[in-house]
């Protein structure tokens, strides 16, 4: 090849490269935090302090993103997952969120944990128009697209779950007298509200509402008091320790109402076993995710993928830690949303894609439980399936039920 021809072909090549590059540039749109090679996303989880057990959420999320990166990333871009510790202290959450947005310059925040920490940064992130996606809390307040268009929930809310119990009771036990024992905080009150809303005009069938404080050593006296109202159904909207105490007390009193415990307290290891397996027989609860310790999922593809991930990227994690499953599921949804964004990685498009999930199924969720969102529905998971404790484990029964609540 002569020098001239070589030059000419080089020129041609350059011209072709330039046109394709500019054509590609025209399609690609980026906001802060996204480039041709990288997507920066932020996260805040308590790795230290009193709530550090939830640190598993962040660790599992990091493992998912690492795996995605090893497999080539999302549309050719690697995920740079920056996760900070706030020790569950809201002032620290604000500092870390500002660091992520203003110093690390992330595209979005995902899976930040806790109601108070998320409330502390909600206004700031919305004023900066930074997506606050899939917050890891069960409060109902994350479904307010009009006031906070950049904040989206993920977990089924306590109210949704409670509505499902109301639906079940209205159908299966019409006319039965209902009593509630709830923890006197935002969680317990959300649960109670969901139940009343679910019963609607029928709410007068609630014959006893008994609340306890987290600081009380035991709820035994409350259970005794509830029995004096002689209800047919007892709902326990408690945290695990108190759930176990209440179920045990029922056994000791030899009183067997239809007993429902919240998903929060549905742990086999932390509630049913301490309460006594024989006392726990027949207790009802609801679930949205697969229980890793349940033998019926032993050969399930979704659980196998989860186990493989832990084995390769997070061997020190205890697989039955339900927070790890939550983190895994959250990160899976995030990956899907980013994949759908394609080359348009603007914050606006991320929100648009997050709003457009239509019955999206994930391996870690129960069959039939799917994620659905819209411009007015910022609550991806609203379905749960009822389950009953039989033998030494939970058995799912009935259809997947929806506890949908309209956004505002």
């Amino acid at each position, binding site marked *: 090849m002569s020098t001239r021809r070589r030059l000419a072909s080089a020129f041609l090549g350059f011209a072709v490269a330039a046109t394709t590059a500019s054509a590609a540039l025209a399609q690609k749109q980026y906001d802060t935090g996204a480039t041709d090679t990288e997507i920066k996303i932020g996260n805040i989880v308590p790795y230290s302090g009193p709530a550090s057990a939830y640190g598993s959420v962040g660790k599992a999320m990091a493992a998912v993103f690492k795996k995605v990166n090893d497999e080539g990333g999302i549309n050719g871009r690697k995920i740079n997952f920056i996760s900070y510790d706030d020790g569950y202290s809201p002032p620290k959450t604000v500092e870390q969120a500002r660091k992520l947005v203003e110093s690390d310059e992330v595209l979005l925040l995902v899976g930040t944990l806790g109601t108070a920490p998320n409330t502390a940064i909600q206004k*700031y992130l919305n004023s900066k128009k930074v997506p606050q996606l899939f917050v890891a809390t069960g409060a109902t307040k994350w479904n307010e697209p009009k006031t906070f268009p950049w904040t989206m929930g993920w977990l089924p809310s306590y109210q949704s779950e409670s509505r499902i119990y109301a639906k079940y009771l209205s159908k299966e036990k019409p006319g039965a007298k209902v009593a509630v024992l709830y923890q006197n905080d935002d969680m317990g009150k959300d649960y109670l509200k969901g139940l009343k809303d679910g019963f609607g005009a029928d709410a007068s069938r609630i014959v006893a509402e008994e609340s306890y404080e987290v600081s009380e050593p035991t709820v035994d006296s409350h259970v005794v008091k509830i029995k004096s109202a002689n209800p047919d159904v007892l709902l326990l909207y408690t945290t695990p320790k108190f759930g176990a105490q209440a179920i045990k007390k029922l056994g000791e009193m030899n009183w067997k109402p239809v007993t429902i415990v919240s998903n929060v307290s549905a742990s086999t290891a932390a509630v049913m076993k301490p309460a006594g397996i024989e006392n726990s027989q027949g207790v009802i609860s609801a679930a949205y995710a697969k229980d890793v310790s349940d033998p019926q999922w032993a050969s399930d593809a979704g659980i196998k993928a989860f186990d493989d991930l832990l084995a390769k990227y997070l061997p020190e994690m205890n697989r039955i830690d339900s927070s790890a499953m939550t983190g895994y599921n959250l990160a899976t949804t995030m990956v899907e949303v980013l994949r759908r964004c394609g080359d348009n990685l603007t914050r606006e498009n991320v929100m648009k894609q997050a709003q457009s999930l239509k019955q999206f199924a994930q391996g870690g969720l129960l069959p039939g439980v799917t994620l659905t969102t819209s411009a007015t529905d910022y609550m991806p998971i609203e379905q749960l399936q009822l389950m009953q404790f039989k033998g030494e484990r939970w058995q799912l029964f009935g259809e997947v039920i929806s506890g949908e609540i309209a956004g505002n």
Partner: protein
Amino acid sequence: MSAAEEVVTEAPAVEAVPKRAMTLGYGTSLVVLAALILTPLFVKNFVIFQMTMLLIYGLAVLALNILTGGSGQFSLGQSAFYAIGAYTTAILMEHFNVNYALTLPVAGVICFGAGFLFGQPALRLSGIYLALATFALALAMPQLLKLGFLEHWTGGVQGLVVTKPDAPFGLPLSQDMWLYYFTLAVSIGIYIASVNLLRSRSGRALMSIRDNEIAASAMGVNVALYKTLAFGVSAGITGIAGGLGAIAVQFVAPDGYTITLAISLFVGMVVGGVGWLPGSIVGSAFIIFVPNIAEGISKGLSGAVFGVLLFLVIYLVPHGARQVALVAQQLTAKLKRN
């Protein structure tokens, strides 16, 4: 109690010239002040926010320093006063639409009252027993804020969201920068007032109580009054810091004011140097930035790394920043002589 009290009794602050030992020289003060005024012009908003928090925690550490370094009383309950101040500001701003600047004196006065009242029973206690009583106060505070009948005002577990103020008179400053200079002005005012307090007759009375209570009362110092006053002043300043903190963070919730905060402030005071007021800001920097550094070194072991760093500081410079400053002063003096 011996270790901490030793620090206090050995402190140069109690020597003949408390004036110099307690503060920085004029030259150094001006340099620090200039740095505090000019730095925000060149850094990102996030760093300005961190500097605001630095000043706020600095004020809270200063308040503890007056109590412990000045009157020799211990407190692990500063987070309670900080919380009262923060909630006072938040409630006044959000429920009564009071201007943020006006909420601070109210927070200060309420906390002064709370501290003064708490100081009454605390009079009967000393040393570790007092520390324990204040510890109880710090433990109780987050739960008190969740009480049902207060929920209408405090927002219960959910807390209260606070609106951040804009710069007044249409000044071309960002919210963060305005809040920083506002906080700086308040901090300088309180710092100067504190220095003057400790240099005054009352300050000497406080220090005499710290050094020897019996001797102090023999000289006619009203021990009970001055001890409770020290508690009140300290709580009042902490309350103002809490109010500023609520405005800067834009949110108050019981989870933000746990015992961890009280212990952090205590750590800040020891690292800064007990009884040396300028050390407050060094201590504040330590409790804000060192946990971040520790997290950078190891996420899973951030607490352990923080512990090791704290241990190193206490082991190498047991008198904190004051010791470093003294060594630096001696070195410069030596250099000048040569």
